[in-house]
């Protein structure tokens, strides 16, 4: 008689066979989901505040509205909060540098052939573009009297398209993000993709 039990913890016995039978479908399902996400077949929801720089050859968005906001914990940094119902980025290069205790600076460079997001909210401290095209633009300022603006302004547009865009988002949320042609490269140091380096 073969006892396939193995003492793994102080508190109980774990059957290696059962453990393998449980892990195989889990890892298989995870592999399918990750492969589908990389191929653009599965949407992945993200919400985060990471120090990234984004270079993109072309950006288009619909249902856009933007207004000044405060960034950081406590709202110390001025920023522009932009909301887009749907946005598409082509030939983008995303750079994020983390300073680790032992390793030092490590930079993650992500090239994205095409990505689309719905329900996108981005709070950016800096954004530049070589060309911008708007349609259905609007500008509003809340007022209590005709000669006295009372609050922050809001600019918006039905459709926006821009070329050679560089932005440094402080925080973002998105309902779903679907990407295609994603390559991730981890490098030592702070060198990322330079302006125009997006393929």
């Amino acid at each position, binding site marked *: 008689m073969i006892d396939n*039990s193995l003492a*793994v*913890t*102080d*508190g*109980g*016995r*774990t*059957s*290696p*066979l*059962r*453990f393998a*039978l*449980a*892990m195989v479908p*889990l*890892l298989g*399902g*995870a592999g399918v*989901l*990750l492969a589908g*996400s990389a191929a653009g077949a*599965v*949407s*992945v*929801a*993200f*919400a*985060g*505040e*990471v120090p990234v720089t984004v270079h993109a050859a072309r950006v288009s968005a619909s249902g856009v509205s933007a207004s000044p*906001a*405060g*960034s*950081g*914990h406590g*709202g110390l940094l001025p920023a522009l909060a932009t909301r887009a119902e749907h946005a598409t980025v082509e030939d983008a290069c995303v750079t994020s540098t983390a300073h680790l205790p032992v390793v030092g600076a490590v930079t993650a460079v992500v090239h994205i052939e095409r990505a689309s997001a719905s*329900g996108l*909210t981005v*709070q950016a401290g800096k954004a530049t573009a070589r060309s911008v095209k708007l349609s259905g633009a609007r500008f509003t300022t809340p007022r209590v009297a005709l000669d006295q603006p009372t609050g922050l302004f809001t600019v918006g547009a039905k459709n926006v398209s821009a070329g050679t865009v560089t932005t440094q988002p*402080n*925080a*973002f*949320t*998105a*309902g*779903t993000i679907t990407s295609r042609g994603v390559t991730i490269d981890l490098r030592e140091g702070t060198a990322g993709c330079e302006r125009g380096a997006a393929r």
Partner: protein
Amino acid sequence: MTTVMPAGRRSRWRGWRQGRPFVAGLLLGLGGLELICVSWAGLGFLRFTGTAGAASWALGALIVVTGMTTWHNPALRFFSGVLAAVLSLVSLVAANLGGLLLGFLLTAVGSALTLAWVPPQTPSSPHEEH
């Protein structure tokens, strides 16, 4: 330097651990908290907005509950293990890529350990599962 625990308390603690999948429940709890922490630390002023923000809290809380269920009622380990496994896969697409993959790995291993745990065979519990 070691901390000396009274013999009675130590034996009770060891008996408590031996009667349940302790490491599995611990990993499930850590995985659920990691999902929440990634969302909490990363969202900043957008702390509770977006699909991923809400999903991280919901999935993380549910996974912590499965870990506590595994500890407090080991007889329900198959239910809690399968539920945690499904939730870990859902977290991959709904909660910041499973808490940047770390939360998914903790939860996946914890759920597999839960399902693989075999209770000690004692004569006093003849109706224990085989």
